């Protein structure tokens, strides 16, 4: 058998932007790459680290306000690299805090303007209300998306991005419209934790297929279920999803 081909996954700011279990997204991508016969190479990038040469997939998570303050300057510093990757179709998943900072700006409750990296055409406003609870949303691209939101920043999409999904339970981007998340090129932005990818493998597989296609110009190999347990991962995922749709907000 041939050596597994490497796929380089860049995890942005795991030290300061990690607080809601978004590490699960990195784990799911690594495992599903392995199960398809690729070798995931995870690069953790924290402020002032060297930006890796090869990047096939980028993920970023949520943090608290204090974490966002710590990384914001550095994010602007590497902004050009991220713009180039985004424009060339690199798949990215940005959750909560980094989803906000991938937009143009975040206006705090005190009226302070925090500049975002401006890859996604969206703006966020800090509010006194926290949107907290289970979310069910409908996406034409990925089907039903399940997760958990916990944010006081409310996000409004500009014409340059599409909503990721339409919320059927919960709030999503803001308390006014019914949109959740954003889509632009191969970027998925979302407020949803849970972690997002374990119960929404359609999104994980989109990110993986795109990364493999970009890097090796091939369709990704079929997934071989890990040996061992009697219950295949698809079945466990389906049952976990069924439970999630039935839980209270």
């Amino acid at each position: 058998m041939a050596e597994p081909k490497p796929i380089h996954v860049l995890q942005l700011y795991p030290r300061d932007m990690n607080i809601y279990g978004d590490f699960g997204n990195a784990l799911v991508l690594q495992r599903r790459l392995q199960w398809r016969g690729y070798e995931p190479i995870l690069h953790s990038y924290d402020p002032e680290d060297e930006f890796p040469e090869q990047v096939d997939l980028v993920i970023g998570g949520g943090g608290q306000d204090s974490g966002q303050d710590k990384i914001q300057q550095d994010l602007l510093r590497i902004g050009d690299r991220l713009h180039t990757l985004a424009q060339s179709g690199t798949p990215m998943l940005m959750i909560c805090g980094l989803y906000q900072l991938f937009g143009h700006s975040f206006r705090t409750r005190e009226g302070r303007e925090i500049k975002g990296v401006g890859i996604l055409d969206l703006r966020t406003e800090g509010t006194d209300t926290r949107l907290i609870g289970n979310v069910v949303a409908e996406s034409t691209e990925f089907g039903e998306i399940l997760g958990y939101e916990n944010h006081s920043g409310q996000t409004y999409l500009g014409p340059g991005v599409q909503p990721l999904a339409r919320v059927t339970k919960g709030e999503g981007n803001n308390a006014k419209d019914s949109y959740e998340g954003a889509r632009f090129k191969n970027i998925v932005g979302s407020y949803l934790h849970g972690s997002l990818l374990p119960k929404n493998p359609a999104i994980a597989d989109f990110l993986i297929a795109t990364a493999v296609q970009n890097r090796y110009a091939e369709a990704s190999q079929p997934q071989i279920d890990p040996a061992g347990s009697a219950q295949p991962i698809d079945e466990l995922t389906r049952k976990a999803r069924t439970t999630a749709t039935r839980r209270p907000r």
Partner: protein
Amino acid sequence: MSRISSAPRTLGTALGSAGSVLIGRAARAVTKLRGGGGSAFPGLVVEKLDPNFLARTLHRLPRGVIVVSGTNGKTTTTKMVVELLQGQGLRVFTNRSGSNFTRGVVASILEDVRLTGTLDADIAVLELDEAHAVHFVKAVRPNHSLLLNVMRDQLDRFGEIDTTAGMLRTIAQHTVEAVVLNREDPRVRAIAETLDTQRVDYFGLSESLRGHFPSDDDFHSGPADAADHPHADVVLEELTEGGGRFTIDGESVSTSLTVNGAYNTFNAAAALAVVRQALGETVDPRALIESLSKVSPAFGRGESLTVQGRPLDLVLVKNPSGFRLGLSSFSAEGVATMIAINDNYADGRDMSWLWDVEFASLAEQGVRMVSGVRAYDMALRLKYDDVDFDAVEPDLSLALTRFLDENPDRPARIFCTYTAMLALRKRLGAYTEVEAF
């Protein structure tokens, strides 16, 4: 209830303490007749009629009030502080009913207080939930406060971990004499910088133990530099078989403990520190250690039962740090493991935290049973860590029966969230004597 809350505020004061006590007791009797638990409602009634009742009653205690707060370990630590003080010959009032909110405290007082409004106690030790503690300390300024930690389990109630740290800071700032802080928790340690008049003492860990107690921050970035750590009055030096070795005021003391687990041993250091602070020179160190060794776990926290002749441990897990520590405190070897995860309100609805725990230590032995409302979330989590499991059964009762039947000869351990533990305990009552809650 709206009619009661619109009653004139002066009524209670006019009635005096005796009036408030009688009204509160009447409310409790009514609540109990209607089948309620009799805890918060009478407290609410008295609070509305006589808002100063709480402060007046507690301030009469000769040695004042100690408050215990933090996200993890409050209940067991409060129990330790109470029993340490009792071992020093003091009469202690505490909010043992389990409703650790202001109204619960008022309700507890109503049970114990005389009609004159005096409590038959020397000192009060109160366990306070962070959010309600802020309201409480503005009404009743504690003499001492013990602040344990800020961990992630209650984020979906308070929003952010820094908000919770802010609540603990408010408690410290409203404390009259002195506070005890956890030296190892950066958010708690930083509270010292915001205090002007209060004395600050610390409890802490030896350098070798720090890696054993990862904080939420350490999980992703490695422990912080220890160089700037202040001196701690009580240090947990090492975990021994069934106990721990502490350095107390420069002296090394080893003791066995009835409570189990690394976490509770660290809580013991916290309890020792606040009792030493509250009693000062008068403390009897020998009696202190003797009392400590006898403290039994608070309800449901790290309980060891015997079921059909085999030992069964219930390990409460409610956040990533606690789960990681639970996994590293107890070896999985030779043990049948079950995990039960609920997501009811008291557990927290967000399942994200399971993804911040590594389960690799269970890989070799595997897991016999996965249960609870979110059994399939947990099973999926194990699958992604290459941990095998025999069965998934969301129904706790069925799962427990099957788990016990299929693993008759080995010690058993169940990691469970709060409401899963309540349900399992109830069910275990059919097999063994389980202390009533």
